């Protein structure tokens, strides 16, 4: 497991959520981050979960199709999760996600990259069988410092609806 760092918060979750299903509106665009990726973290994640030479060893990576050391795509997903967790998920009445329509790895994530996540809220619907919750579909674009898209993910979030007792104050992700 990579060393725990303190770059972007401790993230223990909100005792009282600020954001509910109603607060996610199609058309909203929000941006979160940044997160700096190091060669050590890339290699540590790869050693544990994806020990292919292009993620572990500079020299082997130069000889590969990708042309240099790059993060595992699953590491990019984990980093994206951390960025949005600190960005809004820990303040949200999150119930997790049922999956993702797609994950596209568009460009390599390299040591030294400074990553941000731009979220586009696409659509939402309230659960018919469980009216206390709803679904929110978003597109998450992960961008590097040059504003190039390195990854796109389209998760299907499950989020609790705002309870009547919460006072009904609206918030924004």
């Amino acid at each position, binding site marked *: 497991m990579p060393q725990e760092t303190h770059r972007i918060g*401790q993230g223990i979750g909100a005792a009282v959520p600020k954001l509910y299903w109603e607060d996610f509106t199609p058309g909203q665009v929000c941006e979160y981050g940044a997160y700096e990726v190091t060669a050590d973290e890339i290699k540590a994640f790869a050693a544990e979960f994806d020990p292919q030479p292009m993620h572990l060893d500079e020299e082997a990576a130069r000889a590969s199709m990708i042309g240099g050391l790059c993060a595992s795509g699953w590491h990019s997903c984990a980093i994206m999760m951390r960025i949005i967790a600190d960005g809004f998920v820990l303040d949200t009445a999150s119930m997790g996600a049922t999956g993702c329509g797609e994950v596209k790895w568009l460009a390599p994530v390299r040591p030294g990259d400074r990553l941000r996540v731009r979220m586009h809220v696409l659509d939402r619907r309230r659960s018919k069988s469980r009216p206390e919750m709803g679904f929110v579909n978003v597109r998450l674009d992960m961008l590097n410092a040059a504003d190039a898209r390195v990854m796109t993910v389209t998760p299907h979030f499950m989020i609790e609806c705002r309870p009547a007792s919460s006072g009904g104050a609206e918030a924004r992700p």
Partner: protein
Amino acid sequence: MRYFEDMHVGERTELGSHTFTADEIKAFARRYDPQLFHLDEDAAAHSHFGRLCASGWHTTAVYMRHFVDSELREAEAMRARGETPANDGPSPGIRELRWAKPVYAGDTITFAREVIELREMTMRPGWGLTVARNTAVNQHGELVMSFVGAKFAQRRSKS
């Protein structure tokens, strides 16, 4: 890694099993997905999950470890036969990722991969694209995770 020509549509590979401990679920969550139901038993008991469960990204990462280990074993077998294994190829992405059921602390998850399409790459003559359906099943036989993934595979040199 194996070569594109060595794979065929319909081939199914059992990738092995992994038991998710509470400690590793929390360690992954502290680093990458610190939602309380992945971090704390008491909080998880009060959540809709009911018990401590792994981040979905933890499940996919452990799948990847089993897939890569299987490919590295193949590469070792090729070397033992005097062949040179293929280089590892990157993945352009995956689709239809489903976290169908929670992976709870103590669950033993078995991973498998089935090749569903092999695509020639006219733009990349040295490579082909392998498309595979990947699954993770718990000790009760229930599907917990699945996705369709694509990965470049090196072709055998014609020379």
